[in-house]
């Protein structure tokens, strides 16, 4: 086998074979063929590869910050020190005893990590208000529909809606059930067809970019 074959075509062949096995395995459920085992193992191998890739990612991140540190990038390097120190601290306490069970590890998880994680999440409470202020201007029929649907559903969700007028929850519920339910159904059908077609193009090696080829 020539090197160009290995470099360019072997990955495509691997994609095709593993993909086809995964799909066929779903349709053929005969115990005598043992596809079940192959499927399970293939998923397992893929998840382990993804695991190693995660470690690669963390390594890449660390390299970026080590570079900042060695170049003393202005306005950044001291934050890089903080970051690298915490990565090492977390890994250090994580490796003590049975992996990931040490009280210090749990403390890092429970206090700083969960606090920051949920705070970043909750920042959306602000962004959702400012984006609504900007986006729900009734500039067109579409804008009107968007804004009206949003307001009625908000007034359905918040107890204050029913307190203001009993009709809010009823109309909000109708919007949820009928236009929302139906349009998302159409949206899902379209996306499913698109995703399946995209996947088939990947399987036959026609889709650019996936294996880094343009």
């Amino acid at each position, binding site marked *: 086998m020539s090197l160009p074959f290995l470099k360019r075509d072997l990955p495509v062949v691997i994609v095709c074979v593993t*993909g086809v096995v995964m799909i066929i395995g779903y349709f053929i459920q005969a115990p005598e063929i043992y596809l079940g085992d192959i499927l399970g193992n*293939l998923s397992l191998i893929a998840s382990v590869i993804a695991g190693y890739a995660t470690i*690669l990612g963390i390594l890449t991140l660390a390299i970026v910050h080590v570079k900042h540190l060695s170049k003393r990038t202005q306005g950044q390097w001291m934050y890089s020190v903080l970051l690298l120190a915490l990565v090492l601290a977390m890994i250090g306490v994580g490796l003590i005893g049975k992996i990931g069970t040490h009280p210090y590890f749990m403390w*890092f998880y429970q206090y700083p990590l969960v*606090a920051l994680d949920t*705070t970043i999440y909750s920042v959306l409470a602000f962004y959702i208000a400012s984006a609504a202020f900007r986006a729900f201007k009734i500039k067109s029929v579409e804008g009107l529909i968007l804004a009206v649907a949003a307001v009625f559903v908000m007034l359905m969700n918040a107890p204050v809606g029913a307190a203001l007028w009993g009709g809010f929850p009823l109309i909000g519920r109708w919007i949820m059930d009928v236009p929302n339910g139906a349009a998302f159904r*159409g949206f899902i059908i379209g996306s499913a067809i698109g995703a399946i077609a995209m996947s088939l193009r990947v399987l036959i090696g026609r889709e650019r970019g996936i294996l880094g080829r343009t």
Partner: protein
Amino acid sequence: MAISMDPSVWIAALLTIFAYTIIFKDNPLYRIAEHVLVGLSSGYLFIVTWNYVYDQSVAPFFKGQGLLVAGISLVLGVLIFTKFSKRTTWLSNLSIAVLVGTATGLTVRGYLFAQLIDQVKASIVPVAKLQPLDLVNTLLSLVIVVCTVSYFLFSMEHKGTVGVLAKIGRYGMMAAFGAAYGGTVMTRLTIFIQRAQYLLFTWLGLG
């Protein structure tokens, strides 16, 4: 109640405030919060991931069980790191190919059945026993589903009949997006309220 004396609560509370400052402007406090979050998360992720890959691809060699699968996983896993050298980087493509192939197979399965076929089936409703209002809603839903699917026709311009259907489909989607937006406000506020309760009650001891 009085202000908390627990240093852990203080750290969590201060980091919470640091992180919130991003909504006003970038500043050193947010940068601290950001780097603490990314740093701790990376460390946490490393530990959780290492635990998993060790169990699946290294430990079997000590136990002498499942060597084939573990061996393949280990080799393909380690190949990922060849991307650091320009000459060997093509090797990492082999591992990626296994990931892509498996994911593609799962995608076809997942979308074909759970999404496509089930959603079509759910639109076909017997109407004989429905109340008049439900009948109207059922028919309206069918119309919106059909119009939304027509919106996604790409090989024809949205003109004539297709244009009208696509327009209705777009209106339907705008109602859906508005509803989804409005429905999300609750979840976002909930988490903010929970953080506010932490600051007001757990930390400052008010109320």
